[in-house]
């Protein structure tokens, strides 16, 4: 082990063994170089990432508006990074905002430049920016201003964002009708939902961050600013700063109760923010007026029921209900998602009954007990970390929880049960609990207890069993997922129930069979789930589309003639259902296009598959802009086009995908290699051999840098390059890569076919070089593992050589 690292590591262990207040004294005893390293590593103690927790629930408190004393000097006319500052357009707590333009002429683009005041912890801001850059860079939505760039100038961090003109939503909507205001809020909520799907929480939704302008046809449109910026700028994520300065953040008028309590914000925090926006836009008042002391405001946010907005303006009761549901103190009692909030507003616009109910007496009288409630989010976080594989995991788990919450009649009870289950987690707060076995053991005990304890409430018991089945599925414990799904279905059967929840139980059992690879049984369950969805949901409900989609998905795996044909027909149905529910341009619709494209592709209906890929691509491009998902679809489509013989058409798609990947994921990213490889093959077919070689060499270089030596992908690349050089008649240059490829393949078990291909190419190469004696053994080794034409060719070659 590196001696410097040994010392740093020992210092880190010592420091971590001490309580935080004692660490500084210990650090002072260290060699300065070692100390600096240990301090940098200590800062990571607070980190949350792949190894810990999903990105949405980072350790965070507070927001942008902090009282900072230092006034920045005037910046107009100065250069900040590559930008020339034009005029100051806003004053913020954390810093000022300027209109600026790129000074290096690279792009002619106006930006909003947020320059953080001196006094903020520059390095911490930049570190957080670096951590968030990828995620925020991927966040593309026509209703969200993008974060473009960041840097540091004269010790002051700056952030460059899309420049947006408009008025704060509360001022820009005064001339609008109530209906128009609600329509505007639907758009805002949809943008927020898109961000949530990208695992970005805004954390600081308030009127000054939602600007309203008129589009070319004069219709009002809203644009969200500062998405995800709060997390970067917030000094509270840096414990040193707050300790050193003793500066307390102001309580913001727009803070959610959990933020006042100092808990991490979640998507539910943004739902609360949407509620505040709706409330103020409709009634021109705030639910908790910012008068009096900080303590009074905090008390009101934590404890007071806001008056319905209709007390300040003539409004429909249903709008009261929607506002107040979004503004519930307890995050789990709010709308499950920004999308659910948007859906209720759309229902109101369509004069349909809304899903929210006015709070019952129980809700109104119950005071919020903070400690008890933290459990759900935090402990579910732990479950996710326990398995620790993906952030997506987090969202789907949260979604299952949300689904349970919104759709179960006994939603509150279920949530409370879950909360109780996790609250009793004996490992709470301890890093050691972030361990799959612990969580699993824990779930087994508590889950079984919870289900068994509900014998007198069979409906809830069944609901709980379905929920546990989902949870176990998420955990990858498919046996238990199966057990609980079966139990839930059995309970529904014994009660002779045929509700939406019965459908969900069958769907869970279908998932469980699918996990086990028992596709025929999965199909049967999905069919029952679909039948139930059709009778329990009104026509056009998105759940029906989802049930159709599930059934379609399993069919290509079912071993039955024409199953793929039915998959295609169901895929078409799912597509039209999604379009009816969400319109042509929704991301779910894009997904349905993509899936249908895949079924068609499996059935060799390449032409039609291509149109669906293209449509999926168009929607994704429109709503996501430059995004790795878009690049993936482009790359898919390009491969399809190439296979159809349109190598020419494939090239620009590959190029676009490569550019997006490079910009958003970095030039060395494996995705770049994939697209380069595909493009190399297409270029080769076009006879552009030197371009093809450049692409393949680029792909190989990335593979070598990112893969272990001897990886079969490296061999693939080497074979392609070798074959290309054979084609170009550069035989001696072909020998080197082909020899390496053969060596790699010969070290691996299996892969006989790939190995034979490499051996054949090497044999041909040696033959061209006049070394037939060396070539023959390679052909002999390859022969038994080749197929069809290739085998015939080698056989006749060998026959001639032997002669």
């Amino acid at each position: 082990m590196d001696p410097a690292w040994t010392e740093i590591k020992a210092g880190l262990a010592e420091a971590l063994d001490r309580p935080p207040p004692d660490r500084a004294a210990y650090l002072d005893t260290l060699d300065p170089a070692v100390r600096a390293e240990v301090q940098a590593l200590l800062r990571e103690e607070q980190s949350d990432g792949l190894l810990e927790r999903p990105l949405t629930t980072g350790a965070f408190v507070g927001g942008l508006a902090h009282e900072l004393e230092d006034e920045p000097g005037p910046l107009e006319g100065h250069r900040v990074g590559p930008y020339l500052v034009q005029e100051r357009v806003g004053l913020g707590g954390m810093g000022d905002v300027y209109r600026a333009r790129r000074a290096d002429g690279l792009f002619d683009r106006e930006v909003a430049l947020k320059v953080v005041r001196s006094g903020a912890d520059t390095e911490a801001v930049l570190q957080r920016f670096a951590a968030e850059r990828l995620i925020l860079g991927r966040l593309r939505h026509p209703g969200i201003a993008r974060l473009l760039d960041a840097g540091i100038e004269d010790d002051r961090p700056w952030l460059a964002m899309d420049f947006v003109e408009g008025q704060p939503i509360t001022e820009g909507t005064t001339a609008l009708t109530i209906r128009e205001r609600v329509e505007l809020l639907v758009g805002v909520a949809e943008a927020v939902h898109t961000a949530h799907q990208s695992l970005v929480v805004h954390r600081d939704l308030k009127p000054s961050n939602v600007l309203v302008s008129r589009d070319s046809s004069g219709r009002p449109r809203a644009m969200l600013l500062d998405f995800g910026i709060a997390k970067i700028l917030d000094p509270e994520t840096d414990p040193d700063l707050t300790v050193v300065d003793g500066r307390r953040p102001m309580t913001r008028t727009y803070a959610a109760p959990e933020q006042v309590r100092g808990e991490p914000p979640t998507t539910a925090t943004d739902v609360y923010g949407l509620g505040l926006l709706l409330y103020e836009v409709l009634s021109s008042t705030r639910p908790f007026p910012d008068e009096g002391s900080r303590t009074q405001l905090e008390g009101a946010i934590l404890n007071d029921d806001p008056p319905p907005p209709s007390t300040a303006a003539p409004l429909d009761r249903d709008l009261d209900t929607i506002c107040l549901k979004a503004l519930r103190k307890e995050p789990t009692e709010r709308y499950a998602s920004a999308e659910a909030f948007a859906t209720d507003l759309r229902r109101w616009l369509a004069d349909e009954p809304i899903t929210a109910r006015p709070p019952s007496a129980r809700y109104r009288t119950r005071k919020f007990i903070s400690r008890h409630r933290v459990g759900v989010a935090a402990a579910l976080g732990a479950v996710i970390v326990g398995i620790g594989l993906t952030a997506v995991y987090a969202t789907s788990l949260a979604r299952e929880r949300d689904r349970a919450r919104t759709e179960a009649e006994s939603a509150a009870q279920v949530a409370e049960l879950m909360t109780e289950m996790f609250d009793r987690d004996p490992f709470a707060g301890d890093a050691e609990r972030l361990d799959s076995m612990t969580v699993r053991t824990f779930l087994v005990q508590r889950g079984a207890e919870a289900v068994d304890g509900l014998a007198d409430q069979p409906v809830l018991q069944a609901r709980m069993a379905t929920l546990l089945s989902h949870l176990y599925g998420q955990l990858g414990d498919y046996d238990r997922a199966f057990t609980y799904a079966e139990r839930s279905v059995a309970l529904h059967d014994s009660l002779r129930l045929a509700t939406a929840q019965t459908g969900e139980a069958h769907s869970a059992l279908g998932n469980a069979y699918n996990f086990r690879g028992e596709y025929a049984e999965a199909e049967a369950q999905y069919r029952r789930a679909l039948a139930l969805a059709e009778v329990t949901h009104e026509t056009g409900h998105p759940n029906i589309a989802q049930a159709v989609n599930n059934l379609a998905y399993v069919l290509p795996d079912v071993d039955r003639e024409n199953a793929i044909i039915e998959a295609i027909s169901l895929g078409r149905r799912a597509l039209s259902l999604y379009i009816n529910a969400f319109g042509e341009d929704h991301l779910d619709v894009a997904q349905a296009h993509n899936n249908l494209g895949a079924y068609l592709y499996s059935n060799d209906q390449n032409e039609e598959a291509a149109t669906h890929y293209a449509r999926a691509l168009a929607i994704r491009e429109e709503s996501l802009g430059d995004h790795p998902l878009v690049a993936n679809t482009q790359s898919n489509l390009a491969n399809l086009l190439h296979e159809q013989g349109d190598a020419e058409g494939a090239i620009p798609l590959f190029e676009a995908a490569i550019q997006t990947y490079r910009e958003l994921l970095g030039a060395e990213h494996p995705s770049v290699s994939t697209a380069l490889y595909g493009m190399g093959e297409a270029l080769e077919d076009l006879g552009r051999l030197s371009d093809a070689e450049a692409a393949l060499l680029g792909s190989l270089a990335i593979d070598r840098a990112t893969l272990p030596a001897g990886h079969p992908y490296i061999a693939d690349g080497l074979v392609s390059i070798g074959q290309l050089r054979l084609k170009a008649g550069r035989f001696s240059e072909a020998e080197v890569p082909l020899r390496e490829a053969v060596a790699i393949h010969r070290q691996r078990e299996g892969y006989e076919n790939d190995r034979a291909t490499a051996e054949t190419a090497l044999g041909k190469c040696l033959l061209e070089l006049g070394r037939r004696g060396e070539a023959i053994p390679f052909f002999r080794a390859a022969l038994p593992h080749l197929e069809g034409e290739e085998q015939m060719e080698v056989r006749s070659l060998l026959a001639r050589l032997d002669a």
Partner: protein
Amino acid sequence: MPPAGDVTALLAESKDGDTSAADRLLAAVYDELHRLAQIHRSRSRKDATLNTTALVHEAYLKLIDGDRLPFDGRAHFFAAAARAMRQVIVDDARKRNRVKRGGGDRPTSLDRVGEPMADEPATEILALDEALKRFEALDPRAARVVECRYFAGLTVEETAEALSISPTTVKREWAAARAWLYRALAEGS
């Protein structure tokens, strides 16, 4: 799949310092884990996330003949399995980033139901793996701990057993590795 006795024998040989046996052990465990992972997820739908712990234990049951297992062979197996699991996961993440290359099992991937961001974790796992490679050069033992804890989902105790170190050491190595990796990821992105 090689018969259980073969892997048990390989385990004994590799424990005795036979490096080619160690390589073959790794390859055998890799193949089995890969095969199990495929069964569990390649065709499954939305919750298609690997449960690494279950896979490692399942591979153990399939590959190891308990009666012929040498003393502390079980720990040795888990250490090998953690390495192999990391490779399975990274290969899998890579595969998810590739479409139709080199004879993959499915021409095009379906979106996961209701999960439009299915591609992100692959990216992150690959970034982590790259950082871990660099860390490995600096501190091989701590890197092994990350493999056991993160990639194979072993508990602190299981990790301690697999690597023949104390649980306290596992915790210390984990804390150091975690800090180093987060810092590397923040700088690298």
